[in-house]
């Protein structure tokens, strides 16, 4: 038995949750699908995953870190007030849930805690939504992700075509489910079978094989058409590199951080001019090595969830599944 609601009545659930939470839903916003604060007039986008990954909910593209006032011979540093509002994401897919596992590793382990990330993570509840059909560039199944059962959600919602089913996973999820139970019916359901993936990647043994492939000629080949535009890192749910900078007006300033990308030369260029990754060959190699070799070595998991966004958005059709294949086949 599962708690269900007819799909066209989903806004009633979201409306009710919006009383207690800042509810973020997948929606088309200015032509781009992304998680957007729920209101009655948002255009829900439930047929496929959003283009912009949910990472910016936890790790905004630009984020203020603290304020400062720098006068002649004096400096005052002031922490910014912490946002208290509880958030809830409805409709996060399995691949993007997996990306939060990756980001948790980066921002919450190995001796340091990134307060800005942790704060948002702690006050955000997650309602996952199962996928019915893979999109053209989806390959999460190859990366150990189950598109119908996410890991780490508070509630797993199931797309049952004309209905949506809800299953509480965590205690927090149970609480949330109770809030909306008045709108839900109980029904015996069958979860629809998932379609066939168009894209597949055989990742087995790839991290291990890459250990000996730093100097392999395939990197010169792979990087040839890359424009180093960085679009792949921007839409990637797991890419998390950032820059730290400040904005100053008179004596007052704000320390900020913003997304950065390993595709840019300045990213590693030092003051004396030395750059350990001077050309796109080194940069492209580092990007794929990081995802498929370095991150697994450091955190015991891949830094790719198979969401397919980089495959869709790359202007020159660099396809990570094709690169995995090349690595597999390389001598």
């Amino acid at each position, binding site marked *: 038995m599962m708690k269900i609601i007819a799909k066209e009545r989903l806004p009633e659930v979201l409306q009710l949750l919006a009383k207690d939470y800042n509810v973020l839903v997948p929606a088309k916003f200015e032509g781009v699908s992304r998680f957007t604060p729920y209101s009655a007039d948002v255009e829900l986008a439930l047929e496929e995953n959003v283009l912009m990954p949910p990472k910016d909910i936890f790790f905004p593209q630009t984020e203020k870190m603290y304020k400062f006032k720098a006068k002649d011979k004096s400096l005052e540093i002031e922490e910014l007030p912490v946002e208290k509002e509880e958030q809830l994401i409805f409709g996060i897919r399995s691949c993007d849930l997996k990306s939060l596992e990756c980001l948790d590793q980066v921002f919450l382990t190995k001796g340091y805690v990134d307060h800005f990330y942790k704060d948002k993570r702690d006050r955000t509840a997650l309602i996952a939504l199962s996928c019915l059909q893979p999109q053209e560039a989806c390959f999460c199944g190859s990366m150990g992700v189950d598109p119908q059962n996410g890991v780490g959600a508070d509630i797993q919602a199931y797309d049952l075509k004309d209905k949506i089913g809800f299953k509480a996973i965590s205690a927090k999820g149970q609480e949330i489910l109770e809030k909306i139970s008045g709108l839900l019916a109980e029904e015996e359901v069958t979860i629809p079978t998932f379609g066939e993936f168009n894209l597949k990647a055989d990742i087995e043994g790839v991290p291990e094989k890459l250990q000996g492939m730093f100097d392999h000629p395939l990197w010169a080949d792979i990087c040839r058409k890359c424009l180093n535009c960085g679009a792949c890192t921007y839409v990637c749910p797991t890419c998390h590199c950032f820059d*730290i900078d400040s904005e100053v007006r008179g004596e007052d300033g704000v320390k900020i951080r913003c997304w950065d990308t390993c595709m840019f030369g300045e990213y590693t260029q030092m003051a*004396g001019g030395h750059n350990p990754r001077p050309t796109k060959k080194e940069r492209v190699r580092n990007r794929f090595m*990081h995802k498929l070799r370095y991150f697994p070595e450091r955190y015991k998991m891949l830094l790719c969830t198979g969401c397919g966004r980089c495959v869709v958005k790359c202007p020159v059709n660099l396809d990570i599944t094709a690169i995995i294949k090349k690595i597999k086949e390389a001598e």
Partner: protein
Amino acid sequence: MPNPYLPYEMRIEKITEENPENDLKTFILSFLNEQDIERFKYLPGQFGEVGIMGVGEAPFGIASAPCERGILKFSVKRMGFFTKCLHQAEAGDIVSLRGPLGNSWPLEKLKGKDVVIIGGGFAFTTLRSLVRYIIEPENRSDFGQIDIVYGNREPGQILYKEEFKEWLTREDINLYLSIDREVPGWDKYVGFVPEITEKVINPSVTAIALVCGPPVMIKYTLPVLQNLGFTPDRIYTSLEMKMKCGIGMCGRCNIGSKYVCKDGPVFSMAELEQLPPEY
């Protein structure tokens, strides 16, 4: 757990010009808030992110030693935009500091061993911290013989000139100062660091070598050390890389799966042999 991005507020107490070109300066900083002194516990080899608000932050090895209570010392070569701005600062100016960051020279491993310290040019900063730490009376007996080879282009480039003068008179360290080419009045060694090392160092079988200097110096010194019998697990160096966060999150300073800011900056040659040569 404290927010690792929030800096300490520091006052520049003193600025020393270290070379005739005046592009190498040592900054002595003090903590604006007394209680921060105890919070900032560090070891030789660690670094800090020194910042000028509105200009930026950059990583520098800490040149002072923990026994020099209440102050921190950084020697900075003018290289790019941030260091240019830092060089324009005056005593009394306020800067920010995050740290201590990174690992340290392998103090535990050095205990009871002879230590061979090899430095070149303005890279002697955290090595200075280590020497200062070792010669502190309460620490000195923890370490064996101390040999220091310190090479420079010419005498004017030597960092901490007064201190080296004093160290030359100490009986508990063997100090070999060298310059690349003969100049009038120079009565110490002449030659490049690798050849001086080969000439003067006669290490015990458990001695540990710590090397820090320009890449070309390191490149030619390593084979010399290996010929002298140092195994890769007994040779350490400290690496530099572009950094921002300093805590292993922002991504840019990786060599393979290691972050220089967090897993380094000190690595043994045995560790570096396991990593791709991308630094």
